[in-house]
C-alpha cells in the first residue's frame, strides 16, 4: 500500500531565497511554466523543517541544525540508525566511505556495542517529496528596507554591523504553494507509530519558506488530497490544485472520481477544498466512497488510522 498526497497552503507573503543573490537584491527561486515564472521552495528545505517538527512532536532525531556557526552547519548524534532515529528511518543517508574508512567506521560501531552486520552505509529516503510550486506567478514584487548605521562605541562592543546605513532589496511573493509527498507503506511497517507522527508533522509543517524572521509562512495544509493505493504512482497530476474565485479545486481527480476514472474509496479530501464544495458534489463524492473532512489535520488522522488497517 502507498500514500500519495498533495498539500495546498494558504496564501501569505514569503521569501524563499538563501541560494543566491544579485548584488544587494535577494532573489526568489523560480521556474518558468508557460509564459510566467513561478516561485518554488525546495524539497530539501521542507525536509529540513520536517526533521525539526518530528523532534518537536517527540520523535528522536539524529541530525540537528547548529545555528551559531560561521556557516550553515549540522550535527549528528551518532552514525545513522533507523531503529533509533526517526529522521534516519524516513529520510535515509549516504556515507561515501571507501574500504579503509568503512573498516574504521565498522570497528568504531562494534566498540560502541552496535552490530556492524546490521549497519548500512547508504539508505534511500522512504519519504518522497517534491518542489513546492506557487500557484501565482511572480509579479516582480520587491520590498526595499534600510538597515541603520551602527554607531555603538568600541568600548561597548568591538564588533559592529555595517557602519553605514544599507539599502536592502528583496523579492517577495504573495501566493499559496502546493507540494506533493509520497510514502511506500510496506517500508513503514516496522515503525507504524512513527509513520503516524510523520503524517501529523506534515499536517503541522512550518518554518520552511525562508527568511522566517521577516516572513511568517505556514506550510501546513489549507487543503489536502490523499490517495491510498497499491499503485506505484499517483496516477494523476500531483500538482493538480487550482484556485478559481477563491475556491480550492482539484478538477482532474474530482471529475475523475465522478466519471469512474478513479476508485473514489482510495481518495481522501480535507480542508478548504471540502468547505468550498457544494452539497450535490459532496454527496456525489461520498456516494463514490471518497472520504471528506473539513479539517485537514483531522483528515490526516483518519488516513493515519486507515493506512495500516488493511494489514498490508
Amino acid at each position, binding site marked *: 500500500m502507498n500514500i500519495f498526497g498533495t498539500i495546498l497552503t494558504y496564501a501569505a507573503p514569503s521569501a524563499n531565497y538563501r*541560494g543566491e543573490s544579485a548584488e544587494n537584491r535577494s532573489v526568489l527561486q523560480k521556474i518558468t*511554466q508557460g509564459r510566467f515564472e513561478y516561485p518554488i521552495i525546495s524539497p530539501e528545505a521542507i525536509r529540513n523543517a520536517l526533521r525539526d517538527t518530528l523532534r518537536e512532536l517527540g520523535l528522536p532525531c539524529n541530525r540537528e541544525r547548529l545555528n551559531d556557526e560561521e556557516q*550553515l552547519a549540522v550535527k549528528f548524534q551518532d552514525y545513522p540508525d533507523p531503529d533509533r532515529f526517526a529522521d534516519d528511518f524516513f529520510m*535515509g543517508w549516504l556515507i561515501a566511505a571507501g574500504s579503509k574508512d568503512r573498516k574504521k567506521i565498522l570497528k568504531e560501531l562494534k566498540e560502541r556495542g552496535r552490530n556492524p552486520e546490521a549497519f548500512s552505509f547508504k539508505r534511500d529516503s522512504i519519504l518522497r517529496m517534491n518542489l513546492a510550486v506557487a500557484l501565482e506567478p511572480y509579479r516582480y514584487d520587491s520590498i526595499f528596507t534600510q538597515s541603520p548605521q551602527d554607531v555603538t562605541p568600541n568600548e561597548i562592543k568591538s564588533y559592529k554591523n555595517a557602519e553605514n546605513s544599507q539599502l536592502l532589496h528583496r523579492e517577495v511573493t504573495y501566493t499559496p504553494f502546493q507540494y506533493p509527498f509520497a510514502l511506500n507503506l510496506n517500508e513503514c511497517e516496522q515503525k507504524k507509530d512513527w509513520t503516524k507522527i510523520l503524517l501529523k508533522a506534515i499536517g503541522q509543517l512550518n518554518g520552511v519558506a525562508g527568511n522566517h524572521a521577516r516572513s511568517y509562512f505556514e506550510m501546513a495544509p489549507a487543503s489536502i488530497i490523499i490517495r491510498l493505493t497499491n499503485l506505484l504512482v499517483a496516477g494523476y497530476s500531483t500538482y493538480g490544485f487550482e484556485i478559481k474565485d477563491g475556491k480550492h479545486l482539484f478538477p482532474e481527480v474530482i471529475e475523475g472520481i465522478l466519471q469512474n476514472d478513479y476508485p473514489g474509496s482510495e481518495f481522501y479530501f480535507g480542508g478548504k477544498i471540502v468547505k468550498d464544495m457544494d452539497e450535490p458534489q459532496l454527496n456525489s463524492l461520498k456516494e463514490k466512497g471518497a472520504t471528506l473532512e473539513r479539517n485537514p489535520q483531522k483528515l490526516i488522522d483518519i488516513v493515519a488510522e486507515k493506512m495500516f488497517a488493511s494489514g498490508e
Partner: protein
Amino acid sequence: MLILKLQAPFASFRTFTAGSFRPTASFITPSAAYGLLLNVAGIEMRYDDGKSVMTKIDTGLPECSIALAALKFPKAHSLYQQIHNYPVGNTGKKRKDITKGGKYNIVPARRAFLSNIKALIALKDNHKLEEKIQSGLQGKIRRKYGLPFLGDNNFLIDRLEVITEPEPAHWYIPIKADNEIEYNEYITRLTITIDRAQMSKTRSALFVPTKRPVKDIPQKAWVTVKY
C-alpha cells in the same frame, strides 16, 4: 513489446559531474529508463561490494532493448541551493567528526532539472521482464525498493501506465555514421549503460529525436541495454 507512458512534473538525469553546477541530461536516458523499469519490476540492480565509495551495479541483470520518445520536449531549469558535500582538501574539516560520516561542508550549488516530462518508454526482447513490469505497476510484486522516481528521490512520477497504441512522438535515434537523419536542435548525448566505478566503461551515444512526431517506433530507435 511493452510501451509505457510516463508523465512527471520534474526530473533530473545527472551526468557524471563534480563542482558547483550539477547538470542534467536533456531527456530521460536509456540507462535511467532501464533503472526505472527494473525498479517497477522489483529487481534490485544496486550492489554494495562492501568496499567501494560508489554504489555499483549488480551482474546478471536482464537484457532488453529500449526505445524512448518525447511526447513533448521538457524544459530545463536550475535551482540555487546550499548543499551538503564532502569538500576537497581541508575545508570544513573541523566539522567532520560531528557529522558521523555524513557530508560535513555546506556550499552553494546550482542544480539543473527538467520539468513537464511526457515520454514514451518502449521495451522489447525480454518477455519475462515485461510481465514483471506489468505486475509491478499493479502493485502485485513485493518490492524491496521504495517508490519509483526520476533521478532524484524527490522527483515523483505522476503517471506510468501501459498503453497499447503509441501516440505520435519524437523518437530518439542514436546517430551513426551511415544514418540519414534530419538534424534538429534537440540533439543530445544520452547514457545507455553506466559504470560508476570506471567511467570509461560507461556507454553513451548522441541521439537525435525525429523532427516530426511519428506513430510507429523507428527501427533505428532501439538500443540494447546489457550489463
